[in-house]
């Protein structure tokens, strides 16, 4: 097996108008590669594990950048860097969950160029898949990570279907918790996709992490005012505090009446192929007060239905602990 690290030949388009980008995306379809910060792109290309005919660099398109306050909340252009998201006062003050999540992504340099869109649509990190093996996710007919003695410490607890990879995105959990919706544009139309539906599991799309179709471009993310200024809790547990992806992460948004929990959203990263909603916990949390006891009560519900693999069952107690922590006053 050759090991590569130099970018192979591919064409590069740098459109400045969204229309041109959409036209290019439509023309190249699956053979085209949309370029945000590129931090999850160059590795694939250098390894020659993915071989797009052309890269379509979206960073020159003004329409895809910036953070706007809207009547319904805020809208973040998909090509806005994580750096800008983290430093944005409105997000920091009203949607701190997102700032917290964004500031735990990879490393400073990667946050400096990595985009919101890119972070949301980033590909699975299963080490077998990243090795360039033709597993299910790569269009093959096998999952190497699900073998009887496979090294699957970082893999999923829930919603496995042939593929056992997890959603690696830190901001995705926050977006689902904040009930964000994604704006997906294509030549002929524009779809508004709720975050819940935006991320898709292997049972339906085994080679894709999102419901974006070839030719579609994620142009913006809209966060409703609904959760503005509510109580948030974000935590990411990784081996190292730089670069590493979450072993398990949790993003929580809750309405509080004094100490009593109203409507709430609990979302875990690193446990399923999509940001995983703890619906049982959400239901049970209503009316509870923030306390160790209610934390313990809810923790028990967090891992219901989990199907651990050989090396990842530590994620069960870890998930439960994170739920506890989110409920601490």
């Amino acid at each position, binding site marked *: 097996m050759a090991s590569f*690290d*130099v*970018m*192979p*030949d*591919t*064409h*590069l*388009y*740098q*459109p400045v108008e969204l229309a*041109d980008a959409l036209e*290019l995306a439509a023309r190249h379809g699956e053979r085209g590669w949309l*370029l945000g910060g*590129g*931090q999850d792109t*160059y*590795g694939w*290309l*250098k390894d020659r594990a993915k071989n797009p005919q*052309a*890269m379509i*660099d979206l*960073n020159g398109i003004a329409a895809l950048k910036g953070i706007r306050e809207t009547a319904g909340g805020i809208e973040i252009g998909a090509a806005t860097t994580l*750096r800008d998201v983290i430093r944005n006062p409105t997000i920091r003050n009203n949607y701190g969950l997102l700032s917290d999540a964004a500031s735990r992504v*990879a*490393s*400073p*340099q*990667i946050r*400096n*160029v990595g985009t919101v869109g890119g972070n949301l649509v980033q590909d699975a990190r299963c080490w077998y898949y990243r090795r360039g093996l033709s597993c299910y996710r790569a269009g093959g007919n096998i999952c190497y990570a699900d073998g009887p003695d496979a090294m699957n410490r970082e893999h999923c607890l829930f919603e496995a279907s042939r593929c056992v990879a997890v959603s690696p995105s830190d901001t995705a959990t926050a977006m689902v918790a904040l009930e964000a919706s994604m704006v997906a544009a294509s030549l002929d139309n524009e779809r508004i996709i709720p975050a819940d539906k935006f991320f898709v599991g292997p049972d339906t799309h085994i080679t894709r992490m999102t419901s974006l179709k070839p030719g579609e471009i994620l142009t913006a993310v809209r966060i409703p005012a609904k959760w503005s200024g509510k109580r948030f809790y974000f935590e990411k547990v990784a081996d190292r*505090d*730089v*670069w590493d992806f979450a072993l398990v992460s949790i993003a929580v948004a809750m309405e509080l009446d004094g100490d009593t929990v109203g409507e709430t959203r609990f979302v875990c990263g690193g446990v399923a192929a999509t940001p995983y909603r703890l619906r049982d916990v959400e239901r049970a949390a209503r009316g509870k007060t923030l306390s160790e006891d209610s934390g313990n009560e809810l923790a028990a519900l967090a891992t219901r239905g989990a199907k651990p693999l050989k090396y990842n069952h530590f994620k069960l107690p870890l998930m439960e602990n994170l739920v506890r922590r989110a409920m601490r006053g």
Partner: protein
Amino acid sequence: MAMNPQLSRRRFIKAVIASSAAAASNAGVQSVMAQDRPAGTVERLMSLNINGRTRRVDVLPQETLAYTLRYKLGLTGTKIGCNRGECGACTVLIDDISNYSCSTLTHSVRGGQVLTVEGLQKPDGTLHPVQQAFIDELSPQCGFCTPGQIMSAVALLKENPNPTRKEAQQAMAGNLCRCGAYDNYLNGVMRAAERS
């Protein structure tokens, strides 16, 4: 020292090649690619502003900045430790913001100001405060990650001239040092902050 092949060798080997030489040695191959450039894709011949100087370079569409710097412009101070954005040895500043040049397309910095470790020392030889501080604190060990560490420190001090040690640690976090000289690097950053 007649027995010593040094003299004749001096003529044979060049130090770090100049961009012209590089372009020449690569031209033959790259022209093959050049032929089929679909309409609308990037123009290969481009101007780069590096360390305050504008250089004309022939850059492949997919070429990374680290590659251009090291192989086309002879700026080998920028190191390639992993070529994956996992170590920071290739860190350079683009418009004062730190970037992994191994994970940046050269074509995407068109019109930007690129600053590499070679661009810090003043023409009169005065070192940048960070460079001087790193010497005083004996910050580098093997030195391979040092240019990247320096560029991250420069970026930090441009934005926050008086960081706390904790802030410095956070800002430097995207640079790996296998020798484990983190403590010495942080000492260097703090000393540089005092000075500048």
